[in-house]
């Protein structure tokens, strides 16, 4: 587990607690840590240098707020500055006044263009639009099949042609088809290419000129290192990009490339990819990425999601029940539903600082579904009194929920252990049960 940057800064600043203003020499020590954290997060070296300079100017002489420690104060300044640099979250895909809106996906090999093209098509389809996908990658083996398969999964038509090696022609024909078939959005997939490959960059320019895209979206891998600035700059200079999509954010990459790309192109980051599946596309929130780059986890996102799903009163009444030693299967089911309604568990855990590095963290969504099915198959009495659950009842529950008796036994065992744990909480005086995750 890595120490969060604010912990680190706090230990640095501990000795000067209570002093009013941030002093240059103290700020300098803090900036060293910030610099290291940003470099570890793969923010480009030069971007880091400029950034640190900006923070220095803002931090020196800054008054430490009543409610914050000096470490937190510096982190706040850094965080605000990062958010500002990362841009606003309001960026959307601009639609053309005369449809179809043409969108072109560009980027290096393997960055996630094809997958993201399909994700966007699904996104627009959900909005009630009629997207068309075009298979403009004539380079990579089976790239056309890949897009066709994805199109089928989301029921979006794919224009493709296996008779040509010229992506510009595919683009123009797809545009023609989009017009005849009254599609309001055309998303063109393209082959991955190196920013320094003149021939392929020229090919991309020709495709662009033929279809006049409303949006050229630069798709970048969140794991990209120092070179992100060169890559983004070249694509922006040679093709011109309108926005960025950062993929593979579901891993533990700190995503410093986001900052590098923003700093060099000034173009908005519009979406982030958070999984291989076609629905795993999310809007971009600068504050969340900022804390992630700083290694603080996406606390804000987590807190917000938790607030959304957990009614304060409900949480209190639950706590009452737990303390009153009456935590039933009904309560357990309720909690499972709440947690699930917050989104994919893996994404959720990834937002907790340190969690994204925790090893052997087994999270299986199916497990949740199965557990709930098992609870659903219990009678009301059984749900409030687990002592009733003898062998024949367990067998019945297993049959009713499509699980095995072993599954049922496991759920009951977990429940009993949970109760024991909760009792221990109760036994320890002054130990507060966390409101958000009661178990």
């Amino acid at each position, binding site marked *: 587990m890595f120490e969060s940057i604010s912990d680190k800064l706090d230990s640095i600043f501990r000795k000067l607690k209570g002093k009013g203003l941030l002093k240059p020499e103290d700020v300098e020590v803090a900036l060293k840590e910030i610099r*290291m954290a940003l*470099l*570890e*997060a*793969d923010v*480009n*070296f*030069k971007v880091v240098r400029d950034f640190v300079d900006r923070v220095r100017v803002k931090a020196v002489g800054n008054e430490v707020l009543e409610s914050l420690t000096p470490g937190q104060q510096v982190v706040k300044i850094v965080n605000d500055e990062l958010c500002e640099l990362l841009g606003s979250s309001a960026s959307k895909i601009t639609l053309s006044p005369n449809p179809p809106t043409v969108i072109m996906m560009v980027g*290096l*090999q*393997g*960055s*996630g263009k094809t997958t993201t093209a399909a994700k966007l098509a699904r996104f627009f389809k959900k909005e009630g639009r009629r997207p068309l996908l075009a298979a403009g990658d004539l*380079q*990579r*083996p*089976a*790239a056309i*099949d*890949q*897009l*066709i*398969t*994805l199109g089928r*999964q989301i029921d979006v038509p794919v224009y493709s042609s296996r008779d040509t090696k010229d992506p510009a022609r595919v683009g123009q024909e797809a545009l023609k088809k989009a017009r005849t078939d009254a599609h309001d959005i055309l998303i063109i997939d393209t082959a991955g290419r*190196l*920013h*320094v*490959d003149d021939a392929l960059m020229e090919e991309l320019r020709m495709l662009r000129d033929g279809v006049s895209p409303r949006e050229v979206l630069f798709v970048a*891998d969140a*794991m*990209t*290192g*120092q*070179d992100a600035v*060169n*890559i983004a700059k070249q694509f922006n200079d040679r093709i011109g990009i309108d926005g960025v999509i950062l993929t*593979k954010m*579901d*891993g*533990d*990459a*700190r995503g*410093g*490339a986001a900052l590098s790309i923003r700093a060099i192109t000034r173009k908005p980051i519009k979406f982030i990819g958070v999984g*291989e599946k076609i629905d795993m596309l999310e809007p971009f929130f600068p504050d969340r990425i900022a804390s992630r780059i700083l290694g603080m986890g996406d606390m804000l996102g987590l807190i917000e999601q938790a607030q959304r799903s957990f009614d304060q009163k409900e949480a209190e009444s639950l706590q009452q029940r737990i303390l009153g030693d009456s935590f039933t299967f009904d309560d357990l089911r309720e909690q499972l539903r709440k947690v699930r309604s917050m989104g994919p568990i*893996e994404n959720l855990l*990834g937002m907790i600082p340190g969690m*994204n590095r925790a*090893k*052997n*963290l*087994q*999270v*299986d969504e199916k497990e949740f579904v199965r557990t709930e099915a098992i609870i659903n198959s219990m009678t009301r009495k059984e749900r409030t009194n687990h002592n009733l659950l003898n062998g024949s009842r367990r067998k019945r529950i297993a049959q009713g929920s499509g699980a095995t008796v072993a599954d049922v036994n496991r759920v009951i065992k977990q429940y009993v252990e949970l109760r024991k744990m909760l009792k221990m909480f109760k036994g320890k005086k002054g130990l507060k049960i966390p409101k958000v995750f009661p178990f």
Partner: protein
Amino acid sequence: MGFFDRLKEGLSKTRKGFVEKVESIFSSRPVDEESLEELEETLILSDVGAKSAAEIVKRLGEQAGKGGIREAGSVREFLRQEMVSMLGAAQPLVPFGERPFVILAVGVNGVGKTTTIGKLAGRLRDQGHSVLLAAGDTFRAAAIEQLEIWADRSKAQFVKHQSGSDPSAVVFDAIAAARARGIDVVIIDTAGRLHTKSPLMEELKKVKRVCGKAMHGAPHEILLVVDATNGQNALRQAELFNEAVGITGIALTKLDGTAKGGIVFAIKRELNIPVKLIGVGEGIDDLQDFVPADFVRALFE
């Protein structure tokens, strides 16, 4: 084009950027704090990692302090030696022992596993080996078709199951088929997976176990494919894949593009896993052995 020229061509951008930088840093002035800082910058920009960079620079500073190094030429020589020694001895990927020699390719999404397998199959075929490719990526759309095209290109045999089926099953069948047919090398493709996803890492462990069931001692080589464009996260990938299945070697791809490849030093330094192959393009011939001395020489020439 010979090996050396190809490597040099693939690395030309790296070499130029790096060497020009180092020379310009040290040509006109003595080794001092400022010039060392600039060197650190150059190293970090190559994705060497802030830690490794600091270590190299510290050693360089100490040497300079002892009066050993004063000007550009000796700085370059020192750096070269320093970096070669960090990488250790060359460890090429050579099939050995009982047939078939089973290679399992693993890594995160989009790094170049399938392409590297295709290239490797081509090379092994050229060397006179019979090769069978196993379509173990049953998840990604058209991944099977992609590998099949590479099997055609490299004239390797090919075993597949349906898309969406259990990867372990196809792996078992592939190894069994290879044994029955007396094939020399089996290369197994797998779906890309982020190292943080436990269920997928468990699936990979199972694939490995099943290899052992199909043939005692298999897989003989577990190759982690790493994208040279990646930054420090590649270390995490190496760490967690190694923990899950035990990595025996690394294939570093896309070195023709990122122009750096400094992550090699970080991986070797932290985990002591040898880099065995490098990818320098999308064509079937764009695969090279990783030879540390040549690699570093190409950087500094």
